């Protein structure tokens, strides 16, 4: 262990905060879908991976990064809606575990399809943004931008949910599904829109991740389980809880990772997660019942 309370420690803590933005964004999409439709998308990270490849190839194909990013968001939004329509809708009346497993099938499929289509090599989009130095600490611009955009995305979603009709319907449907038709709301439509938004958020996360990480088909296994942990910790379906949980978990990862090998930071995060859930099973914040 190589851990002192020095400037490197502070740097790790702050990097943890920056990481939290991205994790919070990821957790948001998953929580939204769970809160509204009551399904866990085990393949969520794979959707992000698909987005990352999409953005990579669009950019390589000549599109400026921002255009590629928008294309990526749209791509994953469509993928999310499609996944709901083809795979989840048929099993909505089966026990919830089957709904989770069905997305497990999608996980296998997407990872394998990506491997066949793109090969196992790591790819980097090659955009270097440099870093900013302050007080002997160095922070990558990519991370800072990611944090800012993630917060922006979260705010945008919040506005959508509180100001628009569809957003209000999305909030309402998770509170009382059965009476929605009485107000002229077609629940299936709301689910599709929610799935598209969940996908869109994953696409946004993909755009941010592409700037920081190399892409390979199994990348979903690296952060997928982590995002589930964050959501359960904050209370499945509780978007604010997920946000806070993201900050907690990312501190474990960042500080643990700087003091010890990377795996241990994550391992401790998972251990913390299990202990925390045993102490308070419904998540750190009272989730929707």
């Amino acid at each position, binding site marked *: 262990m190589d851990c002192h309370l020095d400037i490197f420690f502070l740097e790790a803590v702050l990097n943890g905060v920056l990481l939290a933005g991205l994790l919070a964004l990821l957790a948001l999409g998953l929580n939204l879908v769970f809160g509204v439709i009551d399904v866990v998308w085990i393949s969520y990270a794979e959707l992000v991976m698909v987005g990352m490849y999409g953005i990579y190839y669009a950019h390589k194909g000549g599109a400026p990064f921002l255009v590629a990013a928008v294309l990526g968001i749209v791509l994953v939004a469509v993928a999310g809606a499609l996944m709901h329509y083809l795979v989840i809708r048929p099993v909505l009346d089966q026990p919830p575990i089957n709904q989770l497993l069905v997305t497990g099938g999608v996980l296998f499929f997407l990872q394998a399809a990506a491997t*066949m289509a793109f090969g196992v090599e790591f790819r980097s989009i090659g955009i270097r943004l440099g870093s900013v130095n302050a007080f002997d600490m160095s922070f990558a611009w990519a991370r800072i931008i990611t944090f800012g955009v993630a917060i922006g995305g979260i705010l945008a979603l919040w506005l959508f949910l509180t100001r628009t009709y569809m957003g209000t319907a999305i909030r309402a449907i998770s509170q009382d599904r059965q009476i929605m038709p009485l107000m002229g709301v077609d629940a299936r439509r709301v689910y599709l829109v929610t799935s598209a938004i969940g996908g869109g958020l994953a696409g946004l996360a993909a755009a941010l991740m592409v700037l920081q990480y190399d892409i390979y088909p199994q990348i979903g296994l690296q952060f997928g389980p982590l995002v589930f942990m964050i959501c359960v910790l904050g209370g499945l379906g509780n978007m604010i809880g997920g946000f806070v949980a993201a900050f907690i978990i990312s501190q474990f990862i960042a500080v643990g990772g700087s003091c010890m090998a990377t795996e241990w930071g994550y391992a401790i995060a998972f251990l913390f997660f299990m202990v925390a859930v045993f102490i308070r099973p419904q998540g750190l914040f009272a989730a929707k019942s």
Partner: protein
Amino acid sequence: MIRISPAALVGLAALILLPWAVRFGFPGSEKYYLHVLIQILLWAFIYTGWSLMGRFGLTSLGHGAFTGIGAYATVLLWNFAGLTPWLGIPIGVAVSVVVALLVGYPCFRLRIKGHYFALMTLALTEFIRLCIVGLRDYTGGSLGTQPARAGNGISLYAVQFEPDRVLSYYVVLALWAFGLVVWLRIDRSMDRYALDAANQDEDAAASVGIDVTREKLKVTAISAALCALGGAMYGQYQMYIGPDTIAGLGVSLNIVFAVIAGGIGVLLGPTVGAVFTQLLSEGLRVAIQGSGFLKDWLGSAALALDTAIYGLLLVLFIIYMPKGILGTLLAWRDRVRAEKALRPPEAARPVPRRAA
């Protein structure tokens, strides 16, 4: 005592004689065919172990943790402490059981069920996988490791038998049969009814005096033990283990998929699942080797094709055949039998249909 039906006896005899049939029918390539059979039986054993929990609604995505612990404990104790697997395997099994109980107890006490339970087990399997990779000085990290070969690879003391495929086959056959016996013992026991009741309605079960937590812990411990044993034997046969081949989410999902495909509440369901998945991957492998087109197109990613098909099939199975292959066949057979029993004798007049 387990009553063995005549059909089962014939089946068992056939399985015992199978290696000789293979030797006779495929001279020269018997090693390969025996390897396929061994894989089927080994994984069937692991799948059967998982299904002990799965059939009662305790769907775990974390059994990769137990197979991993079993495998790595055995190999590491052999490689670094020279401890014979005759002791190493029980230690691995014991550790798995302890871990299972440590995680299971709070889960069951706190009524963590369904997809919450699945996500908890997912956390467990990831935690174990991360520990395995983190201890890279011992485990070789993501690259995996091998048990040190004893002599020519066949050793009773080292529990190694891989070069002799026929021997390996019988070892694994015994293991598989053992798993079936355990499944049957539980199926015929009071615990089975208690767990079925708890699966349907936990409160009602508790109110008739069933100690739900204890029942669940019992079956969890057995399930973890079997999978740890299976993982350890996997390591002894393959002579190579890796964090992604015998641990982790991928392995966990593979187990679940195979049991769903085969049939979850049925004795031979997991075995059918093993047959199905192994034949599928072997079949695909052979097809890819044989097809120039596929080889060119997929190159090194050819292995991914079977995973893609698994994924597709898992989705299709859950949507259209949630009982699995064997489960659906058995249900169909039962329905046909029931209809036959209800049909009136030939001489009777048909019952008029009620006015709509």
